[in-house]
């Protein structure tokens, strides 16, 4: 092996676990190139936020202090002169993203846990009855103008009567996997189809452009993801602990709170982070449901073009403050977030 030619030394791997120098160089070159593709846009936004208007307009300047003198004028304008106009959407975003994520993870985990551990049998007849009554309710409200809460209450009462009395006579039933598939399949539903009625719904009850409306909508949209991811995490927890606790007489709620949740903490963290970021980034639903009071950061940023044209220096500041927390979180907690993605995708 000693008298290898230069060509051989370049292109043949020295051992099974090592790479040939040429392919090593090529690998690094491609990876570094893509790292530049990823990082350069972020860098450009960051330095643009410290540029003066003429520096932006005169053409590309790449290095602060060498090519141009950085200035904090845009930051001062956004935070001091605009002040509340920036902070209010920011706080809205924080409140809405956090609250909706906490609610979605709580409700979704409960459902996911129950779907893993408890056997369900939903009679198809029950579902059919529910749909018929729902249709009748909508028909009654639109055609005869009956007050919607009265109609809904009557329909609900009829439904329970129906479900408890006749429901059991319909044989065919749906199991856990069907319920799970139904919950997850809601993800295929394009939000734009659902958002029109949601808009009208909130308009009816006077909740348009409020935190409540935004939180409720975001929670509902992210619920399928939570159920999907948490199901896999719960399924991975050994059942023995729960069974022994059950023999000791602990109630289900107690078992869930004291045994299952602590064990599922990594999964909860992954799901929480993923859903939080989705809620923070959401744009389309906010566009429909909020206009001013409940406006979130993506809306504020998107509206910049209309209000002040391509004033990149101000917009860069807004983009930086909108994405900085996300990027910091991504870098620090990358492993946890990626685990959420991986469980969802790898186990299907």
């Amino acid at each position, binding site marked *: 092996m000693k008298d290898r030619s230069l060509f051989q030394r370049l292109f043949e791997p020295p051992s099974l*676990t*090592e790479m040939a120098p040429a392919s*090593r160089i090529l*690998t690094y070159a*491609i*990876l570094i190139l893509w*790292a530049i*593709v990823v*990082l350069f846009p*972020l860098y*450009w*936004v960051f330095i643009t936020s410290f540029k003066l208007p003429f520096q*932006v307009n*005169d053409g*590309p300047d790449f290095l602060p202090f060498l090519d141009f003198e950085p200035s904090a004028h845009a930051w001062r304008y956004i935070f001091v002169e605009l002040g509340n106009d920036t902070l209010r959407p920011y706080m809205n975003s924080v409140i809405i993203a956090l609250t909706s994520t906490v609610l979605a993870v709580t*409700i979704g985990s*409960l*459902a996911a846990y129950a*779907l893993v551990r*408890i056997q*369900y049998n939903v009679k198809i007849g029950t579902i059919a009855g529910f749909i018929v009554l*729902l249709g009748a309710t*909508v028909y009654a409200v639109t055609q005869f103008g009956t007050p919607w809460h009265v109609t809904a209450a009557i329909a609900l009462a009829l439904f329970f009567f129906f479900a408890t009395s006749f429901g059991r006579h319909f044989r065919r039933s749906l199991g856990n996997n069907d319920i799970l598939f139904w919950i997850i399949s809601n*993800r*295929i*539903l*394009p939000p*734009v*189809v*659902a*958002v*029109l*009625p*949601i808009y009208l*719904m909130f308009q009816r009850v006077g909740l348009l452009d409020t935190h409540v409306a935004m939180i*409720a*909508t975001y929670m*509902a*949209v992210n*619920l399928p993801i939570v*159920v999907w991811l948490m199901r896999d995490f719960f399924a991975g927890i050994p059942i023995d602990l729960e069974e022994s606790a059950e023999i000791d007489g602990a109630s*289900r*709620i107690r078992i869930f709170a004291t045994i299952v949740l602590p064990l599922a903490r990594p999964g909860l963290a992954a799901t929480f982070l993923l859903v939080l*970021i989705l809620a923070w*980034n959401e*744009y*389309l639903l906010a566009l429909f449901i909020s206009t001013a009071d409940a406006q979130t950061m*993506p809306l504020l940023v*998107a509206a910049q*073009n209309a209000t002040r044209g391509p004033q990149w220096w101000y917009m*860069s500041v807004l*983009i930086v403050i*909108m*994405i900085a927390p996300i990027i910091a*979180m*991504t*870098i620090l907690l990358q492993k946890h*977030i*990626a685990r959420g993605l991986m469980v969802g*995708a790898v186990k299907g």
Partner: protein
Amino acid sequence: MPQASETTPPRVGFSEWIDQQTGKLFVLPAVVILLAFAIFPLLISAYLSLTKFKLAAGGFSLSYVGLRNFKKLFFGSQQYHLLGTFDAFGIFEWAVFIAALALVAYWFWRFFTGGHFNIPGLIGRLITATVMVALLWLTLATVFGGHPGSLVVTLFYVLVGVSLQFGIGLGLALLCGQAIRGRNAFRIIFFIPLMVTPVGIAYMFRMLADMQRGPLANIWQWFGLGEFSWAADPWTARLVVLIGDTWQWVPFMFIVLLAAVENMPRDQLEAAKIDGAGGWQIFRDITWPSIAPVAATIVLIRLIEAFKIVDLPNVLTNGGPGIATESLTLHSFIAWRTQDLGGSAAVGYTLLFVATVSCVSFFNFIGQKTRKTEL
């Protein structure tokens, strides 16, 4: 009621009753929320798509118009917007179309002679084939010569975007899955774009694509493109949207495929290397079969999400020039903004239909197959 108490089981305390019902209580909130925010709106939307919306004193009124909204979109005054303007088929279009028809015929022939014939399979294949051939015909008729509408543009984002993202993601994952130093740093850096707000990405790429003042201005000038405006040309505008979308979604493909590559059986790889198998051989016979199920799943997830694209075209190009970069969701939003709720719901339903057929077809005819080869 003394008679009733004889037949009922012994009385249970309130806490025990609660414990028995927890199963229902755990699932009920999620089911109720999904009914209220997904199924109920879906039904109302179906009704809305059949009505004409009018603002009236103290609210609004809806009048039933039947399928007129859909008629307007598919055959009437809005046809250019949804489907595009058509151009007669040339030789190239006919060649592609006939080749595709032959492929479909071969697919059915395989199904009939394969010995697994069943009626649901036939119906599923008929629906898939019909929709796919119709979409192909639409694409051929509008892209070469005519002007594609929002449906074809959405398909462009979905098909080209997802393939591009998958290709780049797979390539990076294979490179990063080797024994190299700094793997963790690359992993973290490559992951970032996925989490960045799409609206922010849209403006970021608008700044970068600025041909006079952006960072690449010198390069454009060197090519003599300094005065060229990408926003005024339909295809370059679509390309910029596509690049932004790709920048954001490559990380998703990358991170999941990297996990799959790292989980590959090491001994097989080493045995193949000892036997002197080439890189391509190793990829085809060892790597690909072991990552194919994961690949199918993430492509499916991406397909589902890709059909919903709206932030990038809306902010990056405002749907322009004209309607050139409008996706179906953006089309629906624009219809809503102009008080055309019926039209908006109809576009939304078109999107729902195309997305569902595409995703279910992919799952049944491609996704399932990769799982079988694994066994």
